[in-house]
C-alpha cells in the first residue's frame, strides 16, 4: 500500500510563501527604521565607529545659529505640503468626478490624465526645467506672446517653489484612479433613489457622493501628506539643488546633503526623526479636524 506523504502541512507552506515578503520588509524597512532612531543620537561618519552624542545632533540642527538650513528646509517643505496636498486631492477628485461615467472616449481621457504619472522622475524633472526655462521655455514664450510679465521661475526665489507645486499637480494619476474606484463602489441604486427624491446634481454630490467618498479621500490625503514631504527629492536634485539661496531646499535634499554629501549621518537621522514627528503631528491634526467636522455635521 502506497501512502502519499506530504512533506509539509498546508499552513506551513503558506507561511513559507510569506517569508520573503515579511523578511524583506523587516530587513529593508523595519531594521533601517529602528537604526535611524539610534543613529539620531550618535556621531557617525561611515568611517570611524559611532560615538554617543545624546541630544547634540538635535541641538545642532535646531538651535545652531550658524546653520539655519534645516529650519529653512522645514519651512519650504511645509509650504509645499500646504499647497500641493489640497490642490492635488481636489484635482484628482474633480477629474474622477468628471471622467467617472462610462461614455465614449472616456478610456482615452483617463489614460491621458494618468500619463504624466508614469514618466520617470529624472526625465520628468528635466522636462519641467525646460518648460519653465525663462528664455526658451514654452510657458514664458506663451506669456510673452500674450504680453504678460515673464517671471524668472526657478531662477527667482519668489516663484521657484511654485514650479515644484505646479509639476506635482500633473502627477495625480494614483489619486485619480483610487477615487474612480471609490466612485464605482457606490451602488447605482443610491443614485436612482436620489433621482426619485428629486435631488439636483449639487445635492447628490454634497449629500451622497462626497460622504461616501470620504474614507477614500482621507486615505489619499494621509498618503499624500506623507509622500509630499519625501517625493520632492529627485526633482529638487535635478532642477535646483536647493537654490536660489535655499528657496527650494526641501527636507529630503537637506538630509541628502547632510548624510551622503557631508557624511554627517547623525544630524541627518535627527532631521529624519523630526520630519516623521511632524508628519505624524500633521496627520493627527487632520484627524482631529475631521472629528470636529463630523460632530458639527451630526448636530
Amino acid at each position, binding site marked *: 500500500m502506497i501512502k502519499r506523504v506530504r512533506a509539509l502541512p498546508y499552513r506551513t507552506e503558506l507561511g513559507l510563501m510569506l517569508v520573503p515578503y515579511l523578511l524583506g520588509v523587516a530587513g529593508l524597512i523595519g531594521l533601517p527604521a529602528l537604526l535611524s532612531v539610534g543613529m539620531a543620537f550618535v556621531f557617525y561618519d561611515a568611517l570611524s565607529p559611532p560615538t554617543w552624542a545624546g541630544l547634540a545632533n538635535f541641538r545642532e540642527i535646531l538651535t545652531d545659529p550658524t546653520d539655519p538650513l534645516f529650519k529653512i528646509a522645514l519651512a519650504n517643505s511645509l509650504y509645499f505640503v500646504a499647497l500641493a496636498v489640497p490642490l492635488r486631492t481636489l484635482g484628482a477628485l474633480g477629474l474622477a468626478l468628471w471622467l467617472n461615467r462610462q461614455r465614449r472616449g472616456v478610456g482615452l481621457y483617463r489614460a491621458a490624465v494618468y500619463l504624466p504619472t508614469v514618466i520617470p522622475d529624472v526625465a520628468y524633472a528635466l*522636462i519641467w526645467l525646460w518648460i519653465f526655462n525663462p528664455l526658451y521655455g514654452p510657458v514664458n514664450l506663451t506669456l510673452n506672446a500674450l504680453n504678460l510679465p515673464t517671471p524668472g521661475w526657478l531662477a527667482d526665489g519668489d516663484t521657484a517653489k511654485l514650479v515644484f507645486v505646479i509639476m506635482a499637480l500633473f502627477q495625480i494619476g494614483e489619486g485619480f484612479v483610487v477615487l474612480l474606484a471609490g466612485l464605482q463602489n457606490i451602488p447605482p441604486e443610491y443614485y436612482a433613489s436620489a433621482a426619485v427624491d428629486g435631488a439636483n446634481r449639487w445635492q447628490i454630490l454634497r449629500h451622497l457622493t462626497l460622504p461616501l467618498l470620504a474614507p477614500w479621500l482621507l486615505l489619499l490625503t494621509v498618503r499624500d501628506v506623507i509622500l509630499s514631504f519625501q517625493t520632492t527629492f529627485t526633482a529638487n536634485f535635478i532642477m535646483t539643488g536647493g537654490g536660489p539661496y535655499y528657496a527650494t531646499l526641501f527636507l529630503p535634499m537637506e538630509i541628502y546633503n547632510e548624510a551622503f554629501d557631508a557624511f554627517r549621518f547623525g544630524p541627518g537621522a535627527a532631521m529624519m526623526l523630526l520630519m516623521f514627528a511632524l508628519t505624524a503631528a500633521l496627520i493627527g491634526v487632520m484627524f482631529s479636524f475631521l472629528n470636529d467636522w463630523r460632530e458639527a455635521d451630526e448636530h
Partner: protein
Amino acid sequence: MNTKQNDRNPVSSSVSRKRVSRGLIYHAISWAILILFILPLVWMVSASLRQPGLAPPRIIEWIPNPIAWGNYARLFDLLPVGRYALNSLIVSSLAVPLTLLTASWAGFAMAQLSARGRERLMTFSLVVLMIPVTAVWLTRYVLFAWLGWVNSYLALLAPGIMGSSPLFILLFYWAFRRIPAELYEAARLEGAGAFVIWWRVALPLAGATLVAVGLLAFILYWSDFITPLLYLKSQSLYTLPVGLRQLQEMDRTNWPLLMAGSVVMTTPVIVLFLIVQRYFLQESRLAGIYGQ
C-alpha cells in the same frame, strides 16, 4: 446614443438636441484636459528635435525648423547610452521575475489565510505602502555598506525580495481571491500542496494580473533614480536615469540633447503603460482592484 431614434419623434427633438450639445461640451472639456496632460510630453519631443545653439524663438515652435534628428545620434556619441540602457534592462529583467515570484507567493498565501490573518496582512501592507524610500535611505545605506552591496546591483535588486511594493502583493491577493474557492478545494482534496496549487491553479488564472504587475515592476526599476544614485559608483554600472543626470552635468544648457535623452528614457515606459492601462483604468476592473 439613441439620438437618431429620437429625431424621428418631433416632440423629443429639442430634448435630443440638448443632449447632443451636452455631449459636445463634455467632449470639448475632456479634450482640453487630455491636451493639458499630454502637453509636457509633446514639448519634450518637440524640444528634442530642435537644432542646438539656436537663439530663443519668439513664439512656441511646435515643430522645430530644421528638424534635428542628429541630436539622438549625438547622445550616443557623448555617453555610452547604449550601455546604460542595457544596464537598466539587466536590472529590470532581473527584478521583474523576482518581484513576480515573491509578490505572487505573498498574495497567494494571504488569499488562503483565515479572515483574521488576511485582515492583519492587509493593514500591514497598507502601512508599508505609505513608507517612501527616502524614509529609510540613510540607515539602509549603512546596512548595505556593511554587507558590501555598495556599487553592486544587489542594492538595486534588494526590494525585489519583498515583492518590490506592497501594492503588487495586494494586486495578486485580489486576483487570487476572485478565483472560485472550489478550485482550490478540489486541488487540495487531490493532495496538492500550496506551492503546487499556486503554480497549477492560481497563476494560470491570474494572467492579466501577472502581466500588469510585471509591467508596473519594470517601470518601477527602469525609472529608479535614487537607488542607483546612492549605490552605483563605477560608470560601467550606471543605469539610464543616472546617465541622464551625467548628461545634464556635462552641459546644462544643451536642451535639445537633454530632451532627447528624456525621450529615450520615457518611450519604453509610455509604451508599456499604454499596454497595461486598460487593465487598471477599465471600469469593471477598477472596483476589483481597489475595492473591498
